Each structure stands twice: as C-alpha cells, then as structure tokens.
C-alpha cells in the first residue's frame, strides 16, 4: 500500500512550519494534487474502493483533497455557467428534495440567505439547522472549494435524512453576477465573512465590499435586510465599516440589536476561518448593518 510521503499532510500545522524539507514536499504534493497527477497513485488504497476523497469513518469529504490557494482572481469569470436572470436559477438542482421537478415554477419559496465567499461552508451548515425553513446558498469563486462544500452537504443530507435540504453552494463570481441570482429585495441576510483583504492600495477596488458593490447588495437585500461582515484584519474591518457608514442605504445595528441577534455570534464562530482566528488568539472586527430606504429619496 502506498504510504510514506503521501501521508504527510496528516501531520499538524506546527510540524509543517518547522520542517522545511517536509514543507517543500507538502507543497509539491499540494500542487500535484491540484493537477490531478497523483490520482493514479492515491487510488491504490485497499481499504476503500469508493472515492478515496471521502473518509471511510466519517463519510465526510477529506479537506486535503480539495485544497486550493487562499486567493483567487476576482476578475475571472469564464469557467462556470451563469444564469441569465434570477428566474433561471435552477432550484431543483440545488434543493432536490424541496423542488422535485423542473417544471414547477414555485414562486412562494425563494433563497433568502446568501453567504458570499462561503469557503468550505461552515456557516451555512450551522445556519441550516438554525433556520430549517429558510433557503440559503453559498457563493464561492474557487471551484475546488465549492466541490468540497457540495460533497460535504451531500454527505450530511445522506447521514441526516430530512435535514440540510435547504442549503446549497454555487461556484460563481459574486462580484459580477449577484443580480443574476437574486431578484430585487429577495434576500433577508447576506454574509461577508473573512473576505480577502487585498492589502495593496491599488487592489482595494477588488475587495468584495466596496462602495460600488454595496449598491448591488442594497438592491438584492429587502428593506430591513441585514448584512453581516467580519474580518480579522483591522484595516479591512475599518474600511468595510466606513464603506457601509457612508452608503446612504445602510445603517448600523445598535448594540442592543446585536446582542439580541443569534446569527451575529455564529458569524465569528461557525466558519473554518473564524475557528482558526480563535485558535490563534486573534481579534475579529465585526460590522453588521441594516438595509434602509434613504430618508430623502433624492440623496
């Protein structure tokens, strides 16, 4: 059976940092994984004849087979299909149990929560059981990561019949195509958790919360809809907060409202990124705002 160097990723993060040699092998492994060159070697694991990317014990997908770079080019858009308009979004592909046949134009139920840049899907999984009657979707640009999240949800659906039927992910560029997925005022919650900071001044316009994109987010959110943002980078946190404060269609939630909202706590603890920040003892900067109608129409 093939063991030895291909088993290295199981070693913890600390060891990875200390051993440069092993490190270089790890990254080569990572890169080759992406290029699928190792596929013929991995398959020779006699325990599982099925897809080795799924762990035999937990029946959940193994993250190491879905590794991807943390940063992806937000200008890219050509490798995934985009619905022509919100009415073209395939509900029965995403929520098969709730929308069994394609023909049904069920206008009553619509997606209400959107996690922009959902990563591995941590938040959505937690929200799914908290809001079992609400449809929610995650949008992620990295296709490998979306695959992981999809597999994760499928496995959870199989393991827990009746649950997790209201959550799904889609691989798309939310900075360009949000209006294609959601009608005006459709969403009641939007999440931007730990987005890419894009540190350089010239890259600030690539940030997922910039003053122009806030117009589009205000468009898809209903009146009173809430936007949750959190980051561990202080500069980004200040930036997102000031963008929201300066936008005429958003107002901050009061301290009291923040306390009363159960979702606020989840956004810092439920995602993989959030857990990593807590583990490393980092600080998280939150900005939660409500979508309003501007006081003077002609602002």
């Amino acid at each position, binding site marked *: 059976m093939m063991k030895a160097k291909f088993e290295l990723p199981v070693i913890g993060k600390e060891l990875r940092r200390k051993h*440069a040699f092993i*490190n*270089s092998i790890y*990254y080569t492994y*990572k*890169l080759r994984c*992406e*290029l*699928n060159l190792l596929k013929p070697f991995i398959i020779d694991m006699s325990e599982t004849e099925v897809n080795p990317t799924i762990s035999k014990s937990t029946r959940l997908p193994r993250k190491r087979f879905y590794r991807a*770079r943390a940063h992806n080019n*937000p*200008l890219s*858009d*050509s*490798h995934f299909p985009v619905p*022509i*308009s*919100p009415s073209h979004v395939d509900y029965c592909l995403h929520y098969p149990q709730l929308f069994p046949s394609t023909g049904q134009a069920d206008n009553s139920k619509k997606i209400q929560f959107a996690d922009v840049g959902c990563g591995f899907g941590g938040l959505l999984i937690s929200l799914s059981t908290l809001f079992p009657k609400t449809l929610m979707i995650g949008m992620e640009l990295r296709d490998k990561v979306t695959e992981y999240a999809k597999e994760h949800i499928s496995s959870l659906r199989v393991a827990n019949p009746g649950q997790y039927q209201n959550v799904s992910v889609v691989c798309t560029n939310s*900075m*360009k*195509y949000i*209006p*294609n997925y959601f009608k*005006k005022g459709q969403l009641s919650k939007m999440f931007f958790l730990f987005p890419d900071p894009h540190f350089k001044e010239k890259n600030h316009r690539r940030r997922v919360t910039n*003053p*122009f*994109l*806030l*117009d*589009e987010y*205000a*468009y898809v959110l209903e009146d009173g809809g809430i936007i949750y943002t959190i980051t561990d980078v202080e500069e980004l946190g200040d930036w997102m907060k000031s963008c929201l404060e300066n*936008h*005429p*269609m958003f107002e901050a939630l009061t301290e009291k409202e923040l306390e009363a909202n159960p979702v606020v706590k989840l956004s810092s603890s439920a995602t993989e990124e959030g857990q990593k920040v807590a583990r490393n003892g980092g600080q998280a900067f939150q900005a939660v705002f409500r979508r309003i109608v*501007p006081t003077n*129409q*002609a*602002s």
Partner: protein
Amino acid sequence: MESEPKKETEVAPALIAVHPDQSSVAVAVAVGPHLRVFDLAAGSAASLIDDSDAVPFHKDNIRAVRFAANGKLFVSAGDDKTVKVWSTQSWRCITTVSSEKRVTAVAISNDGTFVCFADKFGLVWVVDLDPPLLDKKPAPLLSHYCSIITSLEFSPDGRFILSADRDFKIRVTNFPNKPLNGAHQIQSFCLGHTEFVSCLAFVKSSQECPQGLLVSGSGDSTVRLWDITSGALLDTCEVAIKAGLLESNGKAEEHGHAVTDLWTVRDGLLVAVAIQSLHGIVLLNCNVSSQTLSVAKVVSVAGEAFVPTCLGSSSSTGNLWMVTGVSSLPGSNNPSLARVRVISGIDGKQESVVLEDESIPGGKKLLETLQGTASVDDNAFLAAAEAVKAAMYNLLIKKQYPSENREYRKKSRNDRKLKS
C-alpha cells in the same frame, strides 16, 4: 499570438450624431480622432475651436459622440482619455474632462447640466457642467464591476440613468438630485440578453407607459423590449433571423451578426437597427399597447457595400442618417474611411428611399466635409466592415479558455512559500 488582437481593437468604427432640432441643424461624424461637423443651416463645414491647453482636439480614436437633448451641447470622448464638451452655437470646446481610463460611452442629462461618461473598466463618472470651467474633475457615479460599458442613456423623464455592459446586463439606476455623491439606488436590472449589450434607445413615453419603454440591441443578434421600472423583458425580436442573415438554428457563424446600433424614429414607434453583415437597416415596429416588437421591413442599400456602423436622426425630419467607416484599416496605411448615406421617409409617411448623394440635405458639400473625400472605394469599405466586426468581438466577447489550458497555465505558477 497575444499581440495581434490588441492591434485589432485599436480600430474604431465611424460614428455619426445628428442635431436633435427639427430643422436638422448640424451633422457630426467622428472617424478615428477626427471630428467633422457640417452646419446644415449655414450650408458649410463648421470649424471647431479648441483652445484648451491640455489636449486640443482628440489625439486618439473617438469612441462616443452625442448631442444634448436640448441641442445646445455636443460631447465627444474616446481612447485619448478625454471627454470634450462643445457648444453647438460657436463650436468651441467649453470643457475638457480627463478620465483615468479610455472612455467607451457618454450621456448628457436631459436638462444639459450633467455629463456622464463610462470607462473601459466599468466605472461611470459624472461631471457638473454648471458653472462652465475649462477643466473639470469628474466624480464616480456607479460601477459595473470589471465590465466594459457599451452604452449610457438617460430615461426620457430624467429619473433614471441606464448603463449597459458586455456582461449581458443593463442596469437602471435612479439618477439623484446630487449625482456627485453617487447614484446608489438601483431601480432594476434588465437581464435576458445572452451576449454583450451594444446599444440602448428609448421609446418615448406615452399615456400607457409614462416612463417609456427601452429597446436594446446585443451581440446575440436580438433586439429586446423592456419595462425599466421592473426590469421585465417584454419582447424579443430575433432581427438577424428575421432579416434573413441567419438560419433559425444556425450555429455555423455564431458571432457574425451582432446588432451594432439602434435608433428610434417617430418617437420610438419605429426602431431602425443596424446589424453586422447587413447592407442596410432593419425597421422594427414597436407596439406600445401590446408591448411587442415586429419587423416592419428591411431597407437595403443597393449598389455599394454599406454596413452602417452608426445611426442618427433628428426627431421629425423623417431622415435617417447612417455612417460606415473605420479609423484605420489594419495592415495598410490607409487614412480613415467614412461614408455617409441617408434614408428619407423613414417615418413611414412616405416610401423609404435611400437617397442618392446629390439629394441628401447638404449635398455633395456635406459628403466632402464629413467623409473627407467625395469618392467611394467599395473594396476598402468591405474590408472596413470586417475590421470593425473583428474589433468589436475582440473587445466585447469573452475569450473562452478550455479547462485543460487552465491547468497547463497553472503549472508555471510558483506557489512555494519557501523560495530558498
């Protein structure tokens, strides 16, 4: 292989704009960096005066020209990253605005106080023309993330500004009283086109429809009718198929017949459509009560290779002005080419006739001024039409990279954290 497409997008189509007043006071043609205006009232070419010390006249291809609705102003903008506002009385350049990126579209508010222009990166800027200064700083108005904006229009009642982009979207935004603070309230998105949207035009408001209906043309060879308040698609007209250019399920030449320009005549009840590869125009009937579009007729220009690159007309003269041409022909040292033709009787009251050179308003003198020369070289214009088509596609159609290529390109990427 990568450098060639860049050169091809340098080719710019010829543009025409007609003064909106009834008496068709002036006609302007822009080819490459040259802006030529013929004053019909005076019967001679208008001489343009530009003494802005920054950039006198345009140094690079002009990409957008427009007369203000009140006829007092004219705007030209293009690849030299400047927007110039001219007074139509004196033809003097009253303001020059610099843009960070190349400009792809311009629009003037109905009362003439604001000029909006869009750049290649998707940002729409607004300039306050009042008080008139020689140098103005634009303020950002809105943005289509990383998408080339192909057309900007104000709605007839001035409430909305519309922006169309190459990502198949049309965004309808409320135009605020203080636009320098940005236009943040989006009214709707008109989604439905399956290719880049190239042009927008309004059907004037009527009793049934006070906001007016929008018609848009696109690279998917259709013209669509929209209700802008809700963003609803009312009707689709497959003009390329109806004009006989394309088979119903023709996949052979998928991208051959983009709609290049639209102009509404007779308050929008008729829409003139220019399509690539069509020698002439298609006239569509727009029925406001049933909210449908249908083909009225195809008017062909016989006797020469004339594929219009831009259309224009003034509200009630019944003349449709067309221009074809290109800033330069790649592979040859030809100077810019332009050819102007006029169709009279376009408003359906009389027979639509493509006028001969002598019978157009302004006659041969106008042609000499606007075209640069009076003579026409057929072969050159065929090549010009092809060049314009290629340039448009290189600019607006997204390149598709197959997934094997993506993996191959990733191979040369070096993610290793430890370089040593």
